[in-house]
Protein backbone atom coordinates (compact mmCIF):
# COMPACT_ATOMS: atom_id res chain seq x y z
CA UNK A 1 0.00 0.00 0.00
CA UNK A 2 2.68 2.39 1.00
CA UNK A 3 4.49 2.42 -2.36
CA UNK A 4 1.23 3.31 -4.09
CA UNK A 5 0.76 6.27 -1.82
CA UNK A 6 4.34 7.25 -2.55
CA UNK A 7 3.67 7.00 -6.26
CA UNK A 8 0.54 9.09 -6.02
CA UNK A 9 2.30 11.65 -3.91
CA UNK A 10 5.20 11.74 -6.32
CA UNK A 11 2.88 12.13 -9.28
CA UNK A 12 1.01 14.93 -7.59
CA UNK A 13 4.19 16.54 -6.48
CA UNK A 14 5.89 16.26 -9.84
CA UNK A 15 3.00 17.72 -11.77
CA UNK A 16 2.59 20.51 -9.28
CA UNK A 17 6.21 21.40 -9.21
CA UNK A 18 6.39 21.63 -12.97
CA UNK A 19 3.07 23.31 -13.42
CA UNK A 20 4.38 26.79 -12.86
CA UNK A 21 7.25 26.36 -15.26
CA UNK A 22 5.35 26.99 -18.44
CA UNK A 23 3.67 30.22 -19.35
CA UNK A 24 1.13 30.28 -22.16
CA UNK A 25 -1.02 32.73 -24.08
CA UNK A 26 -3.77 31.86 -26.51
CA UNK A 27 -4.58 35.37 -27.59
CA UNK A 28 -1.24 36.88 -28.29
CA UNK A 29 -1.16 39.76 -30.70
CA UNK A 30 0.90 39.73 -33.89
CA UNK A 31 0.63 42.23 -36.69
CA UNK A 32 2.49 43.03 -39.82
CA UNK A 33 2.90 46.27 -41.60
CA UNK A 34 3.85 46.90 -45.18
CA UNK A 35 4.59 50.43 -46.22
CA UNK A 36 4.90 51.46 -49.85
CA UNK A 37 4.58 54.77 -51.68
CA UNK A 38 1.12 53.70 -52.93
CA UNK A 39 -0.47 52.24 -49.83
CA UNK A 40 0.09 50.97 -46.33
CA UNK A 41 -1.17 47.50 -45.57
CA UNK A 42 -1.66 46.26 -42.06
CA UNK A 43 -3.03 43.01 -40.69
CA UNK A 44 -3.69 41.92 -37.13
CA UNK A 45 -3.93 38.55 -35.52
CA UNK A 46 -5.16 38.30 -31.95
CA UNK A 47 -5.22 34.53 -31.69
CA UNK A 48 -1.54 33.75 -31.55
CA UNK A 49 -0.41 30.93 -29.30
CA UNK A 50 2.87 31.28 -27.49
CA UNK A 51 4.44 29.25 -24.72
CA UNK A 52 7.58 29.78 -22.66
CA UNK A 53 9.35 27.15 -20.63
CA UNK A 54 10.83 29.15 -17.76
CA UNK A 55 13.24 26.38 -16.85
CA UNK A 56 15.06 26.51 -20.15
CA UNK A 57 13.95 29.80 -21.68
CA UNK A 58 12.64 27.93 -24.68
CA UNK A 59 9.78 29.55 -26.55
CA UNK A 60 7.36 28.21 -29.15
CA UNK A 61 4.89 30.32 -31.13
CA UNK A 62 2.14 29.17 -33.45
CA UNK A 63 0.26 31.57 -35.73
CA UNK A 64 -2.79 30.61 -37.75
CA UNK A 65 -2.48 32.49 -41.03
CA UNK A 66 -6.23 32.65 -41.64
CA UNK A 67 -6.66 34.62 -38.42
CA UNK A 68 -4.92 37.66 -39.82
CA UNK A 69 -7.52 40.39 -40.22
CA UNK A 70 -7.12 42.95 -42.96
CA UNK A 71 -8.93 46.18 -43.51
CA UNK A 72 -10.14 44.98 -46.92
CA UNK A 73 -11.84 41.60 -47.20
CA UNK A 74 -10.50 41.02 -50.69
CA UNK A 75 -6.96 41.66 -49.50
CA UNK A 76 -7.45 39.03 -46.83
CA UNK A 77 -8.70 36.54 -49.39
CA UNK A 78 -5.78 37.17 -51.68
CA UNK A 79 -3.32 37.00 -48.80
CA UNK A 80 -4.57 33.51 -47.91
CA UNK A 81 -5.14 32.29 -51.46
CA UNK A 82 -2.15 33.61 -53.33
CA UNK A 83 0.55 34.89 -51.05
CA UNK A 84 0.91 32.61 -48.04
CA UNK A 85 -1.29 29.77 -49.43
CA UNK A 86 -3.00 29.07 -46.13
CA UNK A 87 -4.60 25.84 -47.34
CA UNK A 88 -1.16 24.35 -47.90
CA UNK A 89 0.65 26.13 -45.08
CA UNK A 90 -1.93 26.93 -42.42
CA UNK A 91 0.51 28.03 -39.74
CA UNK A 92 3.59 30.14 -39.25
CA UNK A 93 5.72 28.96 -36.37
CA UNK A 94 8.67 30.12 -34.33
CA UNK A 95 10.78 27.82 -32.24
CA UNK A 96 13.60 29.28 -30.26
CA UNK A 97 15.12 30.40 -27.06
CA UNK A 98 15.17 33.53 -24.96
CA UNK A 99 18.86 33.87 -24.22
CA UNK A 100 19.92 33.96 -20.55
CA UNK A 101 16.28 33.71 -19.54
CA UNK A 102 16.86 32.26 -16.10
CA UNK A 103 19.22 34.96 -14.93
CA UNK A 104 17.19 37.84 -16.33
CA UNK A 105 16.10 40.85 -14.39
CA UNK A 106 12.35 41.18 -14.13
CA UNK A 107 12.23 43.91 -16.73
CA UNK A 108 14.87 43.90 -19.40
CA UNK A 109 15.83 43.64 -23.02
CA UNK A 110 16.46 40.15 -24.26
CA UNK A 111 17.68 38.47 -27.38
CA UNK A 112 15.49 35.78 -28.89
CA UNK A 113 17.10 33.35 -31.23
CA UNK A 114 15.46 30.60 -33.22
CA UNK A 115 13.85 29.44 -36.41
CA UNK A 116 10.94 31.16 -38.08
CA UNK A 117 8.79 29.15 -40.50
CA UNK A 118 6.42 30.91 -42.89
CA UNK A 119 4.95 29.52 -46.11
CA UNK A 120 6.84 26.26 -45.53
CA UNK A 121 10.24 27.99 -45.50
CA UNK A 122 12.38 28.04 -42.37
CA UNK A 123 14.88 30.81 -41.69
CA UNK A 124 16.93 31.53 -38.62
CA UNK A 125 16.03 34.68 -36.77
CA UNK A 126 17.61 36.72 -34.03
CA UNK A 127 15.79 39.69 -32.62
CA UNK A 128 15.65 41.93 -29.59
CA UNK A 129 12.57 42.03 -27.41
CA UNK A 130 11.40 43.59 -24.21
CA UNK A 131 10.40 41.29 -21.41
CA UNK A 132 8.66 41.82 -18.13
CA UNK A 133 8.29 39.04 -15.58
CA UNK A 134 5.86 39.18 -12.70
CA UNK A 135 4.43 36.55 -10.41
CA UNK A 136 1.79 35.38 -12.86
CA UNK A 137 2.61 37.14 -16.12
CA UNK A 138 5.38 37.14 -18.64
CA UNK A 139 5.02 39.99 -21.11
CA UNK A 140 6.99 39.87 -24.32
CA UNK A 141 7.03 42.61 -26.92
CA UNK A 142 9.08 43.41 -29.97
CA UNK A 143 9.31 43.65 -33.72
CA UNK A 144 11.55 42.51 -36.52
CA UNK A 145 11.76 42.88 -40.29
CA UNK A 146 10.87 40.02 -42.63
CA UNK A 147 11.95 39.91 -46.23
CA UNK A 148 9.02 38.62 -48.27
CA UNK A 149 11.28 37.04 -50.88
CA UNK A 150 13.09 34.98 -48.20
CA UNK A 151 9.96 32.92 -47.70
CA UNK A 152 9.23 32.21 -51.37
CA UNK A 153 6.26 34.56 -51.36
CA UNK A 154 5.85 35.95 -54.84
CA UNK A 155 4.56 39.43 -55.44
CA UNK A 156 3.05 39.75 -58.93
CA UNK A 157 4.41 42.56 -61.04
CA UNK A 158 1.12 44.52 -61.12
CA UNK A 159 1.16 45.10 -57.39
CA UNK A 160 4.90 45.21 -56.93
CA UNK A 161 4.65 48.88 -55.97
CA UNK A 162 1.85 48.31 -53.49
CA UNK A 163 3.62 45.81 -51.28
CA UNK A 164 6.86 46.46 -49.45
CA UNK A 165 9.72 44.04 -50.02
CA UNK A 166 10.45 44.03 -46.31
CA UNK A 167 7.55 44.07 -43.90
CA UNK A 168 7.62 44.79 -40.22
CA UNK A 169 6.28 42.11 -37.91
CA UNK A 170 5.31 43.16 -34.39
CA UNK A 171 4.33 40.95 -31.49
CA UNK A 172 2.91 41.44 -28.04
CA UNK A 173 2.25 38.46 -25.80
CA UNK A 174 0.89 38.28 -22.29
CA UNK A 175 1.73 34.80 -20.99
CA UNK A 176 0.02 33.37 -17.97
CA UNK A 177 0.95 30.29 -15.94
CA UNK A 178 0.00 27.16 -17.81
CA UNK A 179 -1.62 24.32 -15.96
CA UNK A 180 -2.96 21.21 -17.58
Amino acid at each position, binding site marked *: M*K*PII*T*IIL*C*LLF*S*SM*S*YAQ*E*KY*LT*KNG*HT*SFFSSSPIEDIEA*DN*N*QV*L*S*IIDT*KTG*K*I*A*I*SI*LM*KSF*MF*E*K*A*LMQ*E*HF*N*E*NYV*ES*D*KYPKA*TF*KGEILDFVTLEN*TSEVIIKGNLTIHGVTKSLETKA*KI*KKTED*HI*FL*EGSFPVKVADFNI*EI*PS*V*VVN*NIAKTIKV*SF*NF*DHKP*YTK
Partner: protein
Amino acid sequence: MKKFIILLTILSIGNVVTAQDLFEILDEETPQTKEYATATFKGTRILNGHSIENRKKGILEFVISHRFGRVNLGADELFGLDQSNIRFAFEYGLTDNLMIGVGRSSFEKAYDAFFKYKLLKQGIGKKSFPISVSLFGSTVYRSVDDFEPGNEPSESDRLFYTTQLLLARKFSPGFSLQIMPSYIHRNSVAIEEDPHDIFALGIGGRIKLTKRISVNGEYHYTLNPLESINTTNSLAFGIDIETGGHVFQIILSNSITMIEKSFITESTDDFFEGDVHLGFNISRAFQFGQKKKRKQQKIKESHL
Protein backbone atom coordinates in the same frame (compact mmCIF):
# COMPACT_ATOMS: atom_id res chain seq x y z
CA MET B 1 15.62 0.91 -1.52
CA LYS B 2 12.71 -0.31 -3.57
CA LYS B 3 10.75 2.80 -2.75
CA PHE B 4 13.68 4.91 -3.69
CA ILE B 5 13.83 3.31 -7.11
CA ILE B 6 10.12 3.87 -7.61
CA LEU B 7 10.54 7.46 -6.55
CA LEU B 8 13.36 7.94 -9.05
CA THR B 9 11.31 6.35 -11.80
CA ILE B 10 8.36 8.56 -11.07
CA LEU B 11 10.52 11.65 -10.98
CA SER B 12 12.09 10.76 -14.30
CA ILE B 13 8.64 10.12 -15.79
CA GLY B 14 7.67 13.51 -14.49
CA ASN B 15 10.63 14.96 -16.31
CA VAL B 16 9.67 13.22 -19.52
CA VAL B 17 6.24 14.74 -19.28
CA THR B 18 7.59 18.24 -18.88
CA ALA B 19 10.04 17.71 -21.68
CA GLN B 20 7.04 17.28 -23.93
CA ASP B 21 7.49 19.36 -27.02
CA LEU B 22 6.19 22.85 -26.52
CA PHE B 23 4.48 22.62 -29.90
CA GLU B 24 2.46 19.63 -28.72
CA ILE B 25 1.08 21.76 -25.94
CA LEU B 26 0.28 24.53 -28.40
CA ASP B 27 -1.51 22.05 -30.65
CA GLU B 28 -3.54 20.79 -27.70
CA GLU B 29 -4.42 24.31 -26.70
CA THR B 30 -5.38 25.48 -30.18
CA PRO B 31 -9.07 26.27 -30.06
CA GLN B 32 -11.11 24.20 -32.49
CA THR B 33 -12.89 26.59 -34.76
CA LYS B 34 -15.13 25.71 -37.63
CA GLU B 35 -13.55 26.52 -40.94
CA TYR B 36 -15.20 26.95 -44.29
CA ALA B 37 -13.87 26.50 -47.78
CA THR B 38 -12.91 29.86 -49.23
CA ALA B 39 -12.53 31.07 -52.79
CA THR B 40 -14.36 28.19 -54.47
CA PHE B 41 -14.39 30.55 -57.42
CA LYS B 42 -12.44 33.74 -57.83
CA GLY B 43 -15.32 35.94 -58.89
CA THR B 44 -19.03 36.27 -58.29
CA ARG B 45 -19.59 34.87 -61.81
CA ILE B 46 -18.32 31.60 -63.22
CA LEU B 47 -18.51 33.22 -66.66
CA ASN B 48 -22.03 34.22 -67.68
CA GLY B 49 -23.87 33.02 -64.62
CA HIS B 50 -23.40 33.44 -60.90
CA SER B 51 -20.99 31.40 -58.83
CA ILE B 52 -21.61 30.71 -55.15
CA GLU B 53 -19.16 33.46 -54.26
CA ASN B 54 -20.57 36.56 -52.63
CA ARG B 55 -18.97 39.87 -51.93
CA LYS B 56 -18.23 40.28 -48.26
CA LYS B 57 -20.16 42.67 -46.09
CA GLY B 58 -19.61 46.30 -46.97
CA ILE B 59 -18.03 45.75 -50.36
CA LEU B 60 -19.56 47.59 -53.29
CA GLU B 61 -18.50 46.33 -56.64
CA PHE B 62 -18.93 48.16 -59.91
CA VAL B 63 -19.13 45.51 -62.62
CA ILE B 64 -18.74 46.15 -66.33
CA SER B 65 -19.42 43.22 -68.64
CA HIS B 66 -19.15 43.18 -72.39
CA ARG B 67 -20.10 40.70 -75.08
CA PHE B 68 -19.13 41.53 -78.63
CA GLY B 69 -20.66 40.27 -81.88
CA ARG B 70 -19.88 36.88 -83.41
CA VAL B 71 -16.22 36.42 -84.26
CA ASN B 72 -17.21 34.73 -87.56
CA LEU B 73 -18.73 37.96 -88.87
CA GLY B 74 -15.35 38.53 -90.46
CA ALA B 75 -12.95 41.41 -90.86
CA ASP B 76 -15.63 43.81 -92.09
CA GLU B 77 -17.19 43.79 -88.62
CA LEU B 78 -13.77 43.53 -87.00
CA PHE B 79 -14.64 39.99 -85.91
CA GLY B 80 -17.65 41.14 -83.98
CA LEU B 81 -16.00 44.00 -82.13
CA ASP B 82 -18.15 46.55 -83.98
CA GLN B 83 -21.18 45.23 -82.19
CA SER B 84 -21.26 45.29 -78.49
CA ASN B 85 -23.62 44.51 -75.70
CA ILE B 86 -22.78 45.94 -72.32
CA ARG B 87 -24.06 45.56 -68.78
CA PHE B 88 -23.22 47.94 -65.96
CA ALA B 89 -24.04 46.91 -62.45
CA PHE B 90 -23.61 47.86 -58.84
CA GLU B 91 -23.38 44.85 -56.58
CA TYR B 92 -23.17 45.07 -52.82
CA GLY B 93 -22.61 42.75 -49.88
CA LEU B 94 -25.30 43.51 -47.28
CA THR B 95 -23.94 40.81 -45.01
CA ASP B 96 -21.32 38.15 -45.56
CA ASN B 97 -24.13 35.85 -46.69
CA LEU B 98 -26.45 38.17 -48.58
CA MET B 99 -25.54 40.06 -51.71
CA ILE B 100 -27.76 42.28 -53.83
CA GLY B 101 -27.26 44.04 -57.12
CA VAL B 102 -28.84 46.11 -59.83
CA GLY B 103 -27.75 46.21 -63.45
CA ARG B 104 -28.63 47.59 -66.80
CA SER B 105 -27.98 45.77 -70.07
CA SER B 106 -27.93 47.42 -73.46
CA PHE B 107 -29.53 44.29 -74.94
CA GLU B 108 -33.32 44.88 -74.83
CA LYS B 109 -32.55 47.87 -72.58
CA ALA B 110 -33.10 45.51 -69.69
CA TYR B 111 -32.89 46.44 -66.02
CA ASP B 112 -32.22 43.66 -63.56
CA ALA B 113 -32.17 43.33 -59.80
CA PHE B 114 -30.93 40.28 -57.99
CA PHE B 115 -30.12 38.78 -54.62
CA LYS B 116 -27.88 35.88 -53.74
CA TYR B 117 -28.00 34.25 -50.35
CA LYS B 118 -25.63 31.65 -48.92
CA LEU B 119 -27.74 28.90 -47.41
CA LEU B 120 -25.00 26.43 -46.56
CA LYS B 121 -21.23 26.55 -46.63
CA GLN B 122 -18.79 23.79 -47.39
CA GLY B 123 -16.69 23.04 -44.33
CA ILE B 124 -13.13 21.90 -43.92
CA GLY B 125 -12.14 18.81 -42.00
CA LYS B 126 -13.84 15.58 -41.08
CA LYS B 127 -17.61 15.36 -40.84
CA SER B 128 -18.04 18.82 -42.29
CA PHE B 129 -20.72 19.70 -44.78
CA PRO B 130 -19.51 18.67 -48.27
CA ILE B 131 -21.00 21.40 -50.48
CA SER B 132 -21.93 25.06 -50.53
CA VAL B 133 -25.48 25.99 -51.42
CA SER B 134 -26.70 29.43 -52.46
CA LEU B 135 -30.09 30.68 -53.56
CA PHE B 136 -30.20 33.17 -56.40
CA GLY B 137 -33.18 35.20 -57.52
CA SER B 138 -33.46 37.90 -60.14
CA THR B 139 -36.11 40.03 -61.74
CA VAL B 140 -35.65 41.58 -65.18
CA TYR B 141 -37.58 44.47 -66.67
CA ARG B 142 -37.36 44.58 -70.45
CA SER B 143 -37.76 48.25 -71.30
CA VAL B 144 -37.11 48.22 -75.05
CA ASP B 145 -40.07 49.42 -77.11
CA ASP B 146 -40.02 46.97 -80.02
CA PHE B 147 -43.73 46.15 -80.06
CA GLU B 148 -46.16 46.50 -82.98
CA PRO B 149 -48.19 49.71 -82.85
CA GLY B 150 -51.30 49.18 -80.76
CA ASN B 151 -49.86 46.06 -79.23
CA GLU B 152 -48.11 47.71 -76.33
CA PRO B 153 -47.15 45.33 -73.52
CA SER B 154 -48.32 46.09 -70.01
CA GLU B 155 -45.75 46.76 -67.33
CA SER B 156 -46.08 43.27 -65.96
CA ASP B 157 -45.68 41.77 -69.45
CA ARG B 158 -42.18 43.15 -69.45
CA LEU B 159 -41.08 41.19 -66.37
CA PHE B 160 -39.05 38.00 -66.13
CA TYR B 161 -38.10 36.05 -63.04
CA THR B 162 -35.19 33.68 -62.48
CA THR B 163 -34.62 31.40 -59.53
CA GLN B 164 -31.48 29.31 -59.25
CA LEU B 165 -30.07 26.96 -56.72
CA LEU B 166 -26.28 27.01 -56.80
CA LEU B 167 -24.61 23.86 -55.50
CA ALA B 168 -20.83 23.94 -55.46
CA ARG B 169 -17.94 22.00 -54.11
CA LYS B 170 -14.27 22.93 -53.97
CA PHE B 171 -12.71 19.51 -54.49
CA SER B 172 -9.16 20.76 -54.19
CA PRO B 173 -7.46 24.16 -54.21
CA GLY B 174 -7.24 23.84 -57.99
CA PHE B 175 -10.60 22.32 -58.90
CA SER B 176 -14.15 23.46 -58.18
CA LEU B 177 -17.45 22.33 -59.66
CA GLN B 178 -20.91 23.87 -59.52
CA ILE B 179 -24.34 22.61 -60.55
CA MET B 180 -27.19 25.06 -60.95
CA PRO B 181 -30.79 24.02 -61.54
CA SER B 182 -32.64 27.06 -62.89
CA TYR B 183 -36.27 28.05 -63.17
CA ILE B 184 -37.19 30.98 -65.39
CA HIS B 185 -40.63 32.48 -65.59
CA ARG B 186 -41.68 34.92 -68.30
CA ASN B 187 -44.87 36.90 -67.85
CA SER B 188 -45.37 37.23 -71.59
CA VAL B 189 -44.41 35.03 -74.52
CA ALA B 190 -44.20 35.66 -78.27
CA ILE B 191 -46.40 32.80 -79.42
CA GLU B 192 -48.84 30.45 -77.73
CA GLU B 193 -46.47 27.46 -77.92
CA ASP B 194 -43.75 29.20 -75.94
CA PRO B 195 -43.59 27.98 -72.35
CA HIS B 196 -44.03 30.55 -69.58
CA ASP B 197 -41.92 28.42 -67.27
CA ILE B 198 -38.59 27.15 -68.44
CA PHE B 199 -36.41 24.72 -66.54
CA ALA B 200 -32.69 24.35 -67.14
CA LEU B 201 -29.77 22.57 -65.58
CA GLY B 202 -26.36 24.21 -65.60
CA ILE B 203 -22.90 22.98 -64.79
CA GLY B 204 -19.77 25.05 -64.36
CA GLY B 205 -16.28 24.56 -63.11
CA ARG B 206 -12.83 25.93 -62.86
CA ILE B 207 -9.32 24.55 -62.99
CA LYS B 208 -6.54 26.68 -61.64
CA LEU B 209 -3.51 26.91 -63.89
CA THR B 210 -1.45 29.12 -61.62
CA LYS B 211 -2.17 30.91 -58.39
CA ARG B 212 -3.71 33.80 -60.28
CA ILE B 213 -5.07 32.28 -63.48
CA SER B 214 -7.81 29.71 -63.89
CA VAL B 215 -9.69 28.20 -66.82
CA ASN B 216 -13.47 28.10 -66.45
CA GLY B 217 -16.31 26.43 -68.31
CA GLU B 218 -20.07 26.79 -68.04
CA TYR B 219 -22.97 25.03 -69.79
CA HIS B 220 -26.74 25.28 -69.40
CA TYR B 221 -29.06 22.60 -70.73
CA THR B 222 -32.60 23.84 -71.30
CA LEU B 223 -35.25 21.17 -70.72
CA ASN B 224 -38.19 22.92 -72.44
CA PRO B 225 -36.83 25.64 -74.74
CA LEU B 226 -38.75 28.44 -76.42
CA GLU B 227 -40.48 27.43 -79.66
CA SER B 228 -40.72 30.81 -81.35
CA ILE B 229 -36.96 31.06 -81.86
CA ASN B 230 -34.42 28.40 -82.67
CA THR B 231 -32.54 28.30 -79.37
CA THR B 232 -29.27 26.65 -78.42
CA ASN B 233 -27.88 25.73 -75.05
CA SER B 234 -25.55 28.31 -73.56
CA LEU B 235 -21.90 27.33 -73.51
CA ALA B 236 -18.93 29.38 -72.37
CA PHE B 237 -15.23 28.98 -71.83
CA GLY B 238 -13.02 31.57 -70.28
CA ILE B 239 -10.04 32.58 -68.25
CA ASP B 240 -9.98 34.29 -64.85
CA ILE B 241 -7.04 36.55 -64.28
CA GLU B 242 -6.62 38.01 -60.86
CA THR B 243 -4.77 41.28 -60.86
CA GLY B 244 -4.15 42.34 -57.31
CA GLY B 245 -7.44 43.95 -56.31
CA HIS B 246 -9.83 42.45 -58.80
CA VAL B 247 -10.68 39.67 -61.19
CA PHE B 248 -10.69 40.05 -64.94
CA GLN B 249 -12.50 37.43 -66.98
CA ILE B 250 -12.08 36.86 -70.71
CA ILE B 251 -14.91 34.84 -72.18
CA LEU B 252 -15.80 32.97 -75.34
CA SER B 253 -19.49 32.10 -75.46
CA ASN B 254 -22.37 31.51 -77.83
CA SER B 255 -24.51 33.79 -75.64
CA ILE B 256 -24.56 37.52 -76.12
CA THR B 257 -26.20 38.55 -72.87
CA MET B 258 -25.18 38.55 -69.25
CA ILE B 259 -28.48 38.05 -67.44
CA GLU B 260 -29.86 34.62 -66.70
CA LYS B 261 -33.26 34.83 -68.38
CA SER B 262 -31.55 35.78 -71.64
CA PHE B 263 -28.50 33.62 -71.90
CA ILE B 264 -30.15 30.47 -70.59
CA THR B 265 -33.36 30.67 -72.64
CA GLU B 266 -32.66 32.99 -75.59
CA SER B 267 -29.24 32.02 -76.98
CA THR B 268 -29.49 31.23 -80.67
CA ASP B 269 -25.89 30.84 -81.77
CA ASP B 270 -24.08 27.57 -82.30
CA PHE B 271 -20.72 27.55 -80.55
CA PHE B 272 -19.23 24.86 -82.74
CA GLU B 273 -20.31 26.58 -85.98
CA GLY B 274 -18.09 29.45 -84.95
CA ASP B 275 -20.88 31.69 -83.63
CA VAL B 276 -18.69 32.68 -80.75
CA HIS B 277 -18.81 35.97 -78.90
CA LEU B 278 -15.77 37.41 -77.27
CA GLY B 279 -16.51 39.05 -73.96
CA PHE B 280 -15.11 40.16 -70.66
CA ASN B 281 -16.18 40.88 -67.10
CA ILE B 282 -14.27 43.40 -65.09
CA SER B 283 -15.02 44.74 -61.66
CA ARG B 284 -13.76 47.32 -59.27
CA ALA B 285 -14.38 46.81 -55.57
CA PHE B 286 -14.86 49.58 -53.03
CA GLN B 287 -14.89 48.89 -49.33
CA PHE B 288 -17.46 50.59 -47.15
CA GLY B 289 -18.27 50.54 -43.50
CA GLN B 290 -15.71 48.15 -42.17
CA LYS B 291 -12.99 50.73 -41.76
CA LYS B 292 -11.28 49.27 -38.79
CA LYS B 293 -10.63 51.66 -36.00
CA ARG B 294 -6.98 51.99 -36.57
CA LYS B 295 -4.75 50.85 -33.77
CA GLN B 296 -7.85 50.02 -31.77
CA GLN B 297 -6.84 46.46 -31.13
CA LYS B 298 -3.30 47.50 -31.48
CA ILE B 299 -1.70 46.85 -28.16
CA LYS B 300 -4.29 48.73 -26.14
CA GLU B 301 -1.75 49.85 -23.70
CA SER B 302 1.70 48.53 -23.81
CA HIS B 303 2.62 46.59 -20.73
CA LEU B 304 6.14 47.78 -20.88
